[in-house]
């Protein structure tokens, strides 16, 4: 628990990480529109993922020693955490398969998409991750009000991302001639964004459930596995997008 001992330092850390992520995203965009350097883009994505996994998803908690009593809450939380990470590992194979399919079908070309719009939804999702982290930190410190404020902001941003992709980006792409039943480029674009949007949708529902339970005082500073799970899941969705965004919007010559 050393990482969240001090209230202000925990929030501060979240902020610093967010600034790093935002800077890297901006750098990524700048590199992509000025000169082609796929290895650098991949490197940036990997750094972003590492930051999210360590500071937002707290992967180090997997190796925490827990209570030796197997029926205690902390021991069970340890098992739950391990189970959730295994689930994410499993899920990442779906996204990995989609990425492989994208590069197999389109190679080094990319579909005709609005890069600014892509950057906009990416920033929205990144922001939502930042607020999710604040919400979880607040709950861990017993600050219910802070939890609600931040989680509601996360929810609104997440919804914004979903609308941005499904209700703005999709019709926009269709106007550019990129349709699901058109060619393979359209097919893989709608499949990737659709699969991701489905996960966003489930993440939002998860958040609603957690907020409802928090309203009923199910969670406390010590026992809030549900909040942690919702947060880790939400960050995972962000993590997937860290790869999908350059793969769809930045890498390759325009088709």
């Amino acid at each position, binding site marked *: 628990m050393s990482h969240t001992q001090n209230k202000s330092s925990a929030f501060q850390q979240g902020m610093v990480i967010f600034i790093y992520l935002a800077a890297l995203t901006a750098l990524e965009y700048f590199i992509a529109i000025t000169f082609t350097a796929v290895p650098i883009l991949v490197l940036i994505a990997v750094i972003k993922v590492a930051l999210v996994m360590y500071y937002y998803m707290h992967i180090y908690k997997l190796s925490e020693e827990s209570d030796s009593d*197997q029926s205690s809450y902390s021991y069970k939380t340890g098992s739950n955490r391990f189970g959730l990470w295994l689930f994410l590992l499993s899920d990442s*194979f779906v996204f990995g398969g989609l990425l492989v399919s994208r590069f*197999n079908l389109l190679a080094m070309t990319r579909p005709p998409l609005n890069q600014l719009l892509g950057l906009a939804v990416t920033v929205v999702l990144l922001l939502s991750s930042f607020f999710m982290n604040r919400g979880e930190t607040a709950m861990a410190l017993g600050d219910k009000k802070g939890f609600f404020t931040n989680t509601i902001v996360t929810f609104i941003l997440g919804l914004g991302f979903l609308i941005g992709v499904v209700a703005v980006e999709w019709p926009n792409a269709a106007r550019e001639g990129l349709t699901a039943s*058109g060619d*393979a480029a359209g*097919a893989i674009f709608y499949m990737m964004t659709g699969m991701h949007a489905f996960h966003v949708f489930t993440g939002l529902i998860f958040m609603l459930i957690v907020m409802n*339970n928090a309203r009923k005082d*199910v969670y406390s500073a010590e026992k809030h596995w549900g909040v942690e799970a919702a947060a880790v899941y939400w960050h995972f969705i962000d993590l997937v997008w860290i790869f999908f965004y350059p793969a769809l919007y930045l890498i390759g010559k325009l088709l």
Partner: protein
Amino acid sequence: MKRFFSSALARGLFWQFVGTLVGAGLITGIRALMGLSVTDKFFFTEPAWVLGGFFGVLFFMVGTGVTDDWIKWARGIDTPDHHEDRFEGWEKYVNVSLDHKVIGAQYAITSLALICIGGLFALIFRVELAQSQLQFLTTDLNLFGQNGPQLYNTLMSLHGMIMIVSILLGIAGMINYIVPLLLGAQDMSFPRLNAFSYWIAVPAAVLLLMSLVLGGFDTGWTGYPPLSARAPVGMQMFFLGVFTAGWSSILGALNTIVTVVRMRAKGMTAFKMPIFVWSAVATSIIALTATQLIGLSFQLVMFQRLFGMGFFDPAKGGNPILFQHLFWFYSHPAVYVFILPGLGIISELLPVFVRKPLFGYRWIAMSSMAIALVGFLVWAHHMFTSGMNEYLRVPFMYSTLLVAIPTGVKFFSWIATIWGGKITTPTPMLFVLAGIVVFLMGGLSGPPNATVSVDLHLHDTYFIVGHFHDTIFGGFVFPFFAALYYWFPKATGRRMNETLGKIHFWLMTPSFLVLTLGMMRIGLLGMRRRIVDYDPAMGFDSTHMVLTIAGFLIALSVLIFLYNFFNSIKNGEKAEGNLWNSRSPEWQVPSPMPAHNYEIPFEVVGEPYDYGLADAPYTKFMKPETGKHN
């Protein structure tokens, strides 16, 4: 009967029916509003059937009540850790239970039921194949909208997938029942998820069978596009069924890994775990990750059919070979999912019946992990003739041949284990020994398929069919029967009849050897797989007749087994003690196992397989603490 109709199983099936109608009705209504066609050859349109199938699964799961606790949690209501079973006797097995032993038995029995269905399909087309020309699956036939050859294709494809699902359920059954007992755990880590993993396999099996009556499909179990993109609507039910069964496998594997990592008894370090646990973990690692890829590949074809998305359609810039890569990335490691638990059973039971330590325990444990990891790198050896980039064939030949090394380690260790023992051969041991020999034949017929040039001849012939059946019978079926005979007394307190067990064995083993050797023989001579009819000029008629007879003898032996199994539950000879004189913890307590496993927890103080070493117990039961009940 009345009690059956109020069981979770009956409720679930009822709700699946309702859900199918609701989903299909929903799409049909929308289509009617949009002015699209609302009916098709099989009453509903294809999109309607797909959503219907999907809703059917959801309704099934909610209808059985297996999701009740989760729904309560979502609403902020706490539930007790364990629910006591409300039912006794057979009713326990058709209702939702959180007890890993009940779930294990449910898995095993469902697996046996599916083996019977898949076997029945095999018998049907085996009869057709007994002679060249078409006998009863003729072109004039019209059953479920299919003529004879189409029906043959459907049955042959379903035989493949139903057997695969039954294997997945069979290994889940063994893992579920045995692993927590071997670990000294009260249950799996996530009992509700465990029940969920089992129950979701039931609607999956129903979906698979629905594909038979909805026009079938003619692609084989592999479902390669573009053929699968134009097959009848049964194809969608097949995809949906496999997708659903995949979730059962993924979630079960997740549960197994967490259980092994977090629920071991005191003192049980990694290399003091019973060897079966190692193979369960190796299997679960593959099932957890790779299964997603078959789900994804089938999902992509489903969407190609539903929305015209051109992933695998060359006319739209798609790539049919991409499907094969995604598909085999799961489906090759999948065969290691099927065999590793069985090989674990062989390693687990051998020491008991030869009264000697398992030779090279660590190497056997590591060889399971090695097989699992190398298994991820070999998938494209199924595609040597597919037209993929030619240079890829050589590295995949090397990686595939590498699998022989860890597999060889297992064989040599088994032989060294048997050497110098005091061997007894009750029924489980017979099945273990036959498993070794049959798996050896499967293993040895593998490398010719791995070398590219020879595979150009062998690919898609009966040689592959024979090779595959050898590996799966040796790696799963024989060990599975061994496990059923071996742990039956643990579950029921009675043992199965030895005489019938031996008849089962001596009927099945020679028939099976004849079956696969015959398959390989005609395969080498050019008999293609997946064909309803063959040229009489090739001279395969008499061999096929023998194969058919062998197939029926195997079926007969399984019937004998089933009689023995169900009869012994009530009438078997009592066997409540340590029947096999095993060192394993579960045999140190009386059978049948109590509801929460070990009343008194145990501690690991020695090596698991020190047979023949005096005063070296594996486990020690801790002093009972008064007043504390589990």
